[in-house]
């Protein structure tokens, strides 16, 4: 309770740093993740974030210390490798895309675990902090980590603001964008690079395994509340930020089981659970696209039909109910 009070009043400088860091990370991930979801790259994003682990390990092997820029380059290189691997398997063989993505996620993650164990067996290897990169440990976030998150978030939001129109068209209709002469491959790479950058700065707080939850869930949940992309991005950013804040708060205040020490929980899973709760709430309660709203609509339609049928039985003149899609055949009908 005492810990909660200290946390909520932001007395602790370290707590401030951590909360600020995870909150801002959530905003950036929610926004860029929405585009990844709309581009149907959610799982590729997962592969890219899993590939960050062997990426930072390789960087540590080469540089020999914990360095943001080395980690970033390593994660980017491996992220590109992972997406290239997926497209290669997909185009060069008859393996389907989902299987190729599964291969990439597990393969790169396995490699990352092996490499991180090798580093921890080295003298001084613990200082790399790689153990916390798997499930995240926001409490170990330093001031400079949080600063980097801030810089990355600013860059991500700026790119999205500047290239909003380009990313929108890329996600909606890539062929049309290409017909305008746009470099769609570069735009796709940029999108994945931004996902990659968010993953790298998010590693200490969320970890590679669950990074995808912060990228995917806010966008998917936000989609329930709106039919407009701008609004969806705003809501996704807000939900992502809230998930980061709440998840970190929980991890810092709920006592961990064995030791009874506070801050014993890994933050990644708690942030993920909060985000998942947002999703469930959105799915159930969203006014138009939600499950409950849909149920209510169906029940009331059935009621109307029943009463109209009852009327029709006695009176032929009652009009038939209007169909919601009056004009033509169902969508997506196959053509001969």
């Amino acid at each position: 309770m005492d810990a909660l009070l200290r946390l909520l009043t932001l007395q602790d400088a370290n707590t401030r740093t951590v909360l600020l860091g995870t909150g801002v990370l959530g905003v950036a991930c929610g926004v860029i993740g929405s585009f990844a979801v709309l581009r149907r790259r959610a799982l590729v994003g997962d592969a890219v974030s899993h590939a960050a682990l062997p990426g930072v390990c390789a960087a540590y092997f080469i540089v020999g210390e914990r360095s943001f820029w080395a980690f970033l380059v390593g994660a980017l290189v491996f992220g590109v490798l992972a997406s290239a691997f997926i497209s290669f398997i997909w185009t060069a063989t008859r393996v389907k895309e989902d299987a190729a993505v599964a291969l990439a996620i597990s393969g790169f993650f396995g490699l990352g675990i092996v490499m991180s164990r090798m580093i921890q067996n080295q003298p001084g290897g613990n200082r790399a902090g790689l153990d916390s990169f798997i499930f995240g440990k926001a409490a170990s976030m330093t001031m400079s980590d949080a600063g980097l998150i801030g810089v990355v978030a600013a860059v991500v939001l700026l790119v999205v603001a500047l290239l909003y129109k380009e990313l929108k068209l890329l996600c909606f209709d890539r062929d049309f964008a290409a017909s305008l002469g746009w470099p769609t491959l570069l735009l796709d790479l940029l999108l994945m690079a931004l996902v990659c950058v968010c993953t790298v700065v998010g590693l200490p707080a969320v970890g590679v395994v669950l990074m995808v939850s912060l990228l995917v869930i806010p966008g998917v949940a936000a989609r329930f509340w709106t039919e407009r992309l701008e609004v969806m991005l705003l809501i996704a950013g807000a939900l992502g930020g809230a998930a980061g804040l709440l998840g970190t708060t929980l991890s810092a205040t709920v006592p961990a089981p064995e030791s009874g020490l506070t801050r014993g929980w890994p933050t990644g899973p708690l942030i993920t659970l909060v985000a998942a709760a947002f999703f469930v709430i959105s799915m159930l309660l969203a006014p138009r696209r939600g499950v409950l709203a849909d149920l209510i609509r169906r029940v009331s339609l059935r009621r109307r039909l029943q009463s109209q049928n009852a009327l029709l039985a006695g009176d032929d003149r009652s009009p038939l109910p209007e169909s919601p899609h009056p004009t033509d055949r169902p969508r997506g009908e196959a053509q001969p």
Partner: protein
Amino acid sequence: MSTATPQPSASSAPKTGTPASPSAVEVHDVTVAYHRKPVLWDVDVQLPTAKLIAIIGPNGAGKSTLLKAILGLVPLASGRVEVFGKPLKEVRSRIGYVPQRETVDWDFPVDALDVVLMGRYGKLGWLRRPGKADRDAAMHSLEQVGMAPFAHRQISQLSGGQQQRVFLARALAQDADLYFMDEPFAGVDAATEQAIVEVLRRLRTAGKTVVAVHHDLQTAPEYFDHVVMLNMRLIAAGPMETTFTAKNLQSTYGGRLTILEETAEAIRRGGRER
């Protein structure tokens, strides 16, 4: 194939925008392969300007691929393409495109006007947002296809025919001289089909060229002036009256002979029921 030989059209009509160039599109010995399997084989065809041109052929004949090859959306294994006597890169702004409706996610969080505005993106250039003039142009395009009342409808709440009209409006907003349409009549209702036909005729009157993949052999001679018959290789290309013959249909569609003969016979008799 010497590339040094100047095209007659290119040398006689160096200026763009004039009907002096007889060919809107010149496809020279184009071969396209997916997964090393050829889809288009050595296609050599010229498409005239200010005509409505149908590309017909059986499933898997490479009709969409030919459009994509001209638009530079698929890599050419060999050959080259010229549009208005120039390389594609120089004339992109004069080209409009209507992809197949099924290729996009219609649950995307945008409304009809947003989609049509995308037709203005090519002219806007990087980083710039569409302004009021673009919005007006997009609304005007929606009016032309009879979709103005649906401008602020989310696109998943439109019927298939309405979605197709939105796609057509987006191409109109591109304000192009040459339009490529991939099965614009696929899965649409009668009202939409009529609306599209009217738009196509207005485009032709305005001197624009339309190249469309078309499936319906019954309506092809009525809607289009010129035909390209394709079955991996080019079977025939030319004005509808002289090219759309039973013999050419037979070589294009192969085995499914009887139906085709009946169709061609019906067409020859002028029995256009639609």
